[in-house]
């Protein structure tokens, strides 16, 4: 007999024994238990006297029903001593008179509840003295005054966001990122390039207006791929006028003194940038075989004008572009004007010139040019909304005045 067979026989025998045991003795254990005996509570009928005595001893809240039934009787006399023989009879009488008297009865009620009255005694004097305590409520009101304490905190936060015109500053930096990306093409330093993204975020956050936030979001998307591009910036920054950068940087710094992150992030990125720019410049110089250093000097300047900034400029100018008095021919003429700008955003009127025109005759071109020039002069009198730190980008602006949408249709 194999061992397996032995085990099989053994198990079989054990199972059979178990079954027999369950048949013989299992009945005692597995029969359903009989239902627990129902507990029957003895209910005794309470007599009216007992009920009245119980009600008399009950707390004052109960009395109201009794007064209703007893209302016709004198309130002073304790109801306990005169148990009404028939409870149903009083109900109809109680309905008509009731409420006014019931309101007066509370006075006697305290008598029936000495304990409560005793506790309430201190309160009445308190009520008398409440007249002065009226001062207390004002004291409680002050609690709302606590809000002012809270308000000051948010105000300063919001003020810097909305009030500061510097709002435009953040977008510029966001744009800086995109440009930097192309320059970072040199992959040599991959890891150091990524940290450069942080400085970008740090610059954007300062004036976190809603618009700026959107731009920041855009920059966040770009950085991942363009992180290394930031490296060329360092080389470009030294060239542009130092005061401009310092002004822009200073403004946000003053507004948000409590924000340490931006300050920390800026220095951090700068270091890797320098390394990257140097290495990149060297690499480019070597690759181009000579003038590497001069090329990256990026004489032109820093970040480009963002689409949002362009749109803001367009919106500003088109408000003054009045085509109502233009002739039909002029409305079919597109003119391109060029204007030189001052760093403060004001156009140099004398520099406005006609660069080109299409679709019209000489006279129509003149009219279209005058309308465009008038728009620049009118809306430029207050300065155009352009980021000062990008002045090199908009020193000269060319504008196409295309009246296609303004034609008579």
């Amino acid at each position, binding site marked *: 007999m194999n061992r397996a067979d032995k085990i099989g026989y053994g198990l079989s025998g054990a199972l059979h024994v178990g079954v027999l045991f369950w048949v013989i003795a299992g009945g005692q254990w597995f029969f359903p238990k009989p239902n627990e005996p129902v507990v029957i509570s003895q209910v005794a009928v309470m007599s009216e006297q007992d009920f009245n005595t119980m009600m008399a001893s009950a707390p004052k809240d109960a009395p109201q029903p009794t007064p209703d039934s007893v209302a016709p009787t004198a309130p002073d006399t304790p109801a306990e001593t005169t148990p009404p023989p028939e409870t149903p009879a009083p109900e109809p009488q109680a309905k008509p008179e009731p409420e006014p008297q019931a309101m007066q009865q509370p006075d006697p009620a305290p008598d029936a509840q000495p304990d409560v009255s005793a506790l309430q005694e201190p309160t009445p004097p308190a009520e008398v003295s409440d007249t002065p305590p009226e001062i207390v409520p004002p004291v409680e009101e002050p609690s709302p005054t606590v809000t002012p304490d809270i308000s000051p905190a948010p105000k300063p936060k919001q003020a810097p966001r909305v009030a500061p015109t510097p709002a435009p500053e953040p977008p510029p930096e966001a744009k800086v990122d995109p440009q930097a990306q192309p320059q970072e093409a040199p992959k040599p330093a991959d890891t150091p390039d990524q940290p450069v993204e942080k400085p970008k975020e740090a610059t954007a956050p300062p004036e976190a207006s809603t618009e700026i936030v959107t731009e920041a979001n855009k920059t966040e998307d770009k950085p991942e791929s363009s992180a290394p591009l930031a490296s060329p910036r360092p080389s470009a920054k030294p060239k542009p006028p130092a005061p401009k950068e310092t002004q822009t940087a200073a403004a946000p710094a003053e507004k948000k003194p409590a924000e340490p992150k931006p300050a920390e992030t800026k220095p951090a990125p700068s270091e890797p940038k320098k390394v990257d720019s140097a290495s990149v410049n060297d690499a480019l110089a070597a*690759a181009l075989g000579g003038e590497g250093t001069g090329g990256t000097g990026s004489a032109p300047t820093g970040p480009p004008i963002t689409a949002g900034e362009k749109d803001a400029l367009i919106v500003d100018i088109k408000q003054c572009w*009045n*085509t*109502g008095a233009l002739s*039909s021919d002029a409305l079919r003429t597109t003119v391109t004007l060029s204007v030189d700008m001052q760093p403060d955003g004001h156009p140099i009127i004398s520099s406005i010139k006609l660069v080109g025109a299409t679709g019209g005759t000489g006279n129509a071109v003149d009219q279209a040019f005058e309308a465009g020039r008038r728009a620049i002069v009118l809306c430029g009198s207050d300065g155009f909304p352009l980021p000062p730190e990008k002045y090199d*980008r908009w020193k000269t602006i060319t*504008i*196409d005045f*295309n009246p296609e949408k303004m034609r008579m249709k």
Partner: protein
Amino acid sequence: MMRFVLSLLAAVMLAPIAATAQDSEPLHIEITDGVIEPMPFAIAGFIPETQEAGQMASQITQVISSDLTGTGLFREIPKSAYIQNVSSFDTPVKYSDWQAINAQALVVGSVGMQGGKVVVKFRLFDVFSGQQMGDGQQLAASPASWRRLAHKVSDVIYSRITGEGPYFDSRVVFVSESGPKDNRQKRLAVMDYDGANVTYLTDASTIVLAPRFSRDGTKVLFTTFETGFPRIKMLDVATASARLLPEVPGTMTFAPRFSPDGTKIVYSMEQNGNTDLWMMNISSGQTQRLTTSPAIETSPSFSPDGSRIVFESDRSGTQQLYIMPASGGDATRISFGDGRYSTPVWSPRGDMIAFTKQNQGRFHIGVMRTDGSEERLLTSSFLDEGPTWSPNGRVIMFTRESPGAEGSASLYSVDISGRNLKKVSTPGAASDPAWSPLLP
């Protein structure tokens, strides 16, 4: 693989250079929409150079202001807002003072009397550019023509600012109406474009319709019922004398219009129940039949160069607009919209055709390109009809009749943009306007 790596490396290295080149370009933007609003202007006053010119100077200033603001393209700044007091014609202009009140154009002038004539001098300034627009001008006329002087000044200002041709110094011939609808009396009248200086050319003894100016403005063609049937008559505006044009017995002639050169007349003639277009040489009286369709052809109008004629015909079953050579021949239909088109008139500039459209119980004045494209309706009312172009092709005048037994006809004008719809002031009811060319 090696080549690919090298190419990639080269591209990476050159990318910054390309970006730098692109960055160096000036900021460039395109503006495709602006605002349409009246241009604010100021008339510093036409200073009277002599005492007797004082009243006339005030009147001339008022007419100029009315002309410019009446276009809907200009808005006069109240004199109470003026900062600089211009005391003489040669007073230097303080542009800053006029910029402060947002005056974009400034007119400075003077009125004097020399040799029994009124002399008007004026200059126009572009305030925001701080320079004069064009040269100053001096005009002279008899005192009786002071309104024409004012209109001339307005025309110069209007043209210099807008680039459009002038039209203020023009006249309008129309049918003046009086009496109830069932017994309406009509007579020809002529007035300044703004309703002033109304002069009656005919009496109310017979019904007259559809007057049309000649290209030089000296003659008027119109339809008269003095013989009991519609006949064409030509009237000399200067003398108010008129004569019937030659006729073919048993026919009715109507809807005449001069050719651009003034030597011919195109008109409709009903003969044996059929109405066709005909051409007549004014001097010789020779006629030429232009259409032979059994349909009704009428309301012909020459193109400015005289080479084509636009007219209405129901040859397709409904009234539509057609264009054909001035010598007749095949006609091309140009209107295809819903409703019926009638009374086409070619723009003096030749680029558009004005018409009357009836659709869904409403009448409209509209314009379209000469090929029928870009149709746009400028008005809508119970009854609008009979458009006529201003000399510069920028404004259309037409007849609007109000409904009901008490309704009457009035003249209205509208810019071809559809803006500035306004009623033209006339002594009474008026209809069938025809704009003259610009007066010499």
